[in-house]
């Protein structure tokens, strides 16, 4: 699949929905001029309805006269993956694209929410246009308008990405430092776009910005917090200055000054997250590095790759999770197969006996590692184990327990779920090219003489694909996944467990003993340290034997498995170690966590650097006194009170709406303080603060939020000594170091004592001078 085919006329950057609701707009960047051409094409895709023939006919009659309906056609087809026979099918075209969903809801209601199944309802017209016309975002194209043709398929691995003009955008409020809380009536003092900065009277700055946008015509605006600050502020001030949408267009088309998507809080993998409102810039992309899950890891090269494969706009990819991308890829493959996408998943989990459920509903194998310092361990990992299992065992909702292969040899170990041997399932069909792609990029990275830019582009694509592959498995068990099925999730786990169990005797036969294992990784110790097995040969043998790629990660000089605070046994995913080639591997310790305070991170880094000199477990242990001496130094400086406060900022993701808290925690104090200063935070947003007096019950005295820091605050030294002691304990517990002992050694105060609860009426709050906000406290 190499396709540096005949040179294209340009690249299709994006497809957006048009204002009139009846067409889509194609944005094509011309190769010759570098300009972006806008073409509107009338396009209103239908959605499909199945149900009993008589009721469909009745529905068709009722819809025919409605003004919101353009066309109703009764036909037949097999829209579902599970359809074995042709069924009557009603195709409904709404009169406007924005009316699509409302019309679908009406149809659903007319069927009493039971008679009809609807398909393709929530695919957006741009996505359907791509799929219906064999196009995709960033496709090299020839022709124009509705005759646009892609010159290579989206799966092409070795493609030339379009040259995107990127410009940074940054807005500053007059007289304010960035990052502080802007006053509600703050004027824009300056705006930077790319290398140009505009200053002066606000309306002039805004007009100059629009002028520069038209002149330099960037394809992509890059901001740091643009969804939450720069864009809303620009639109707000433009409105205040009396500029109309026609005079102040930040995209390549004028739009109303309001977000397309309001801010929201949501839960993902047990964490509450927050996403700012999204402002549209038709024809132009905006990436907010703070509002993007994927940007950090994938940057533009990875995002372009994901957009091509998912047929989702870059604008959507950057703001959505990898799971959304994967679902969109599944949808694309489904439509290619002539199957349609069900609107509401209508496949509830079947009833099962409780004991069968206990048997089936299990995760991967996770051993408890032996706590302590170990040396000369070999680590092996399976690359993309779960996606590989799905492909090898043909695991997909519709291939499981199929009618055509009652004697299939593909049976999930212990559970017996059969999978089809005749037809490749939708999930494997979607995954196989992704796996191949990732391997191809990885192989390309090994090419000698690769230039740095190309290498970083490849690495970003590899990482992007990794995320998408990871979610592919999780989505099998997700109740809303369109093509997911819980039994698939269980079957994948069953194969993975069986694999790890088979690897235990295989490792022993090869001269290893198993020290630790987590789902797809193994830590093995050579039984005879003087004659260790050849790890690469072992990995190759196992890969061949199990038909799954086992890779050799490396040999550790030393590795420390850490205990749980509660029961002292090992925690599967908390360890740190140093490979022989000098790389560290850290899991579950402070530096890996997002909320770790800078000073704790510094302590960890210095500790790890000290331990970096150790060649084996013995010399590691011998370094303990030096590490403790370093901890003492940290403690002394903390106690002296002169640690820079910006290194002491603690960051917490707020788990619930501010008013939902019932206890007065540090975060609550920070939230109250922000609110008093005129800034409200929602669930899932992050608050940063320095602890001033952890025993105080006043939100003004307990903490100081990062946005209000002056730099000369007196922090609560005991509180930070406690954090330091915890960090030291985390790393050093296997060597007999504990928090209480450290605190005693440093002469720090004991555990936190809080004043007893007093009602707000009893507490007189002193003012922090942040404005005329009514005082509230706990």
């Amino acid at each position: 699949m190499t396709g540096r085919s005949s040179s294209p006329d340009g690249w299709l950057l994006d497809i957006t929905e048009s204002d009139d609701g009846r067409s889509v707009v194609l944005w094509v960047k011309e190769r010759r001029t570098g300009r972006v051409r806008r073409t509107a094409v009338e396009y209103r895709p239908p959605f499909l309805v199945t149900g009993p023939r008589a009721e469909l006919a009745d529905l068709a009659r009722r819809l025919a006269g409605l003004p919101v309906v353009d066309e109703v056609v009764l036909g037949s087809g097999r829209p579902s993956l599970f359809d074995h026979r042709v069924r009557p099918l009603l195709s409904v075209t709404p009169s406007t694209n924005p009316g699509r969903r409302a019309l679908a809801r009406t149809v659903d209601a007319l069927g009493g929410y039971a008679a009809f199944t609807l398909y393709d309802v929530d695919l957006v017209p741009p996505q359907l246009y791509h799929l219906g016309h064999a196009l995709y975002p960033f496709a090299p194209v020839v022709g124009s308008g509705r005759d646009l043709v892609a010159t290579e398929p989206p799966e092409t691995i070795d493609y030339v990405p379009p040259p995107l003009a990127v410009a940074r955008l940054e807005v500053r409020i007059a007289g304010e430092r960035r990052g502080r809380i802007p006053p509600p009536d703050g004027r824009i003092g300056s705006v930077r776009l790319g290398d140009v900065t505009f200053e002066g009277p606000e309306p002039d700055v805004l007009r100059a910005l629009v002028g520069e946008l038209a002149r330099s015509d960037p394809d992509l605006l890059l901001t740091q917090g643009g969804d939450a600050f720069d864009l809303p502020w620009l639109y707000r001030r433009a409105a205040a200055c009396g500029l109309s949408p026609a005079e102040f267009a930040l995209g390549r088309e004028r739009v109303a000054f309001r977000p397309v998507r309001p801010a929201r809080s949501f839960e993902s993998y047990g964490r509450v997250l927050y996403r700012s409102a999204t402002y549209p810039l038709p024809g132009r992309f905006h990436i907010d590095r703070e509002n993007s899950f994927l940007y950090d890891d994938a940057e533009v090269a990875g995002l372009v790759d994901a957009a091509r494969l998912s047929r989702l706009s870059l604008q959507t990819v950057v703001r959505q999770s990898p799971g959304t991308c994967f679902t969109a890829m599944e949808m694309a493959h489904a439509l290619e197969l002539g199957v349609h996408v069900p609107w509401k998943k209508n496949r509830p989990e079947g009833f099962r006996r409780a004991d069968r459920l206990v048997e089936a509903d299990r995760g991967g194998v996770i051993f408890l590692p032996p706590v302590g310092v170990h040396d000369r361990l070999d680590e092996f990992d399976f690359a993309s184990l779960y996606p590989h299992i799905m492909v090898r065992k043909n695991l997909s909702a519709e291939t499981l327990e199929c009618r055509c292969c009652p004697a299939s040899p593909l049976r999930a170990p212990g559970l017996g779920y059969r999978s089809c041997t005749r037809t490749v399932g939708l999930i494997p069909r979607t995954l196989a090219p992704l796996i191949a792609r990732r391997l191809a990029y990885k192989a390309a990275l090994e090419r000698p003489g690769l230039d740095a830019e190309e290498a970083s582009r490849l690495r970003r694509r590899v990482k992007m694909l990794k995320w998408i592959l990871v979610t592919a498995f999780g989505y099998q068990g997700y109740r809303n996944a369109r093509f997911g099925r819980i039994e698939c999730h269980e079957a994948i786990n069953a194969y993975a467990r069986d694999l790890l169990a088979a690897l235990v005797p295989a490792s022993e036969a090869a001269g290893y003993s198993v020290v630790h294992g987590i789902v797809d990784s193994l830590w093995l110790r050579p039984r005879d340290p003087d004659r260790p097995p050849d790890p690469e040969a072992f990995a190759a043998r196992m890969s061949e034997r199990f038909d799954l790629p086992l890779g050799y990660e490396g040999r550790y000089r030393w590795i420390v498995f850490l205990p749980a605070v509660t029961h002292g046994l090992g925690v599967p995913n908390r360890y740190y170690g140093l490979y022989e080639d000098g790389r560290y591997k850290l899991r579950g310790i402070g530096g890996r966590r997002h909320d770790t305070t800078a000073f704790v991170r510094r302590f960890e880094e210095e500790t790890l650097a000290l331990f970096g000199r150790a060649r084996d477990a013995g010399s590691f242990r011998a370094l303990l006194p030096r590490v403790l001496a370093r901890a003492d130094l940290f403690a002394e400086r903390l106690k002296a009170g002169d640690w820079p406060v910006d290194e002491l900022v603690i960051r917490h993701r707020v788990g619930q709406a501010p008013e939902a808290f019932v206890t007065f925690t540090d975060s609550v104090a920070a939230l109250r303080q922000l609110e008093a200063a005129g800034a409200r935070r929602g669930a899932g947003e992050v608050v940063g603060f320095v602890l001033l007096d952890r025993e105080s019950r006043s939100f003004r005295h307990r903490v100081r939020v990062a946005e209000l820091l002056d730099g000369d605050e007196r922090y609560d030294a005991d509180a930070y000594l406690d954090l330091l002691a915890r960090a030291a304990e985390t790393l050093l517990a296997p060597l007999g170091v504990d928090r209480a002992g450290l605190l005693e050694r440093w002469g720090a105060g004991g555990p936190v004592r809080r004043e007893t609860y007093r009602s707000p009426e009893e507490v007189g709050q002193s003012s922090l001078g942040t404005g005329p906000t009514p005082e509230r406290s706990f």
Partner: protein
Amino acid sequence: MGRTAPTYRQALEERMKRWDEFARLLTTPEERAAFELVRTGARRYAAQATYVGSPDLLESILLSVLTDLAAQLRAAAAERTDRRPV
């Protein structure tokens, strides 16, 4: 992404809460220390018990505790053999 059944580790911790009542009436430090060993033994083989996936929680706990005890007995016996004068 909720699970329907609790994991073995969750079920074990839940069951062991009941054991607290048992431990409260142990009267000597030696007995209490011994009881803690039993608890540790129950936790030590969680991976293996999960792998079995038995609906009988107690079966898994007993296997885990007994394996732990047997391993310690063997280790103690090996140590005695080592110390025997040559």
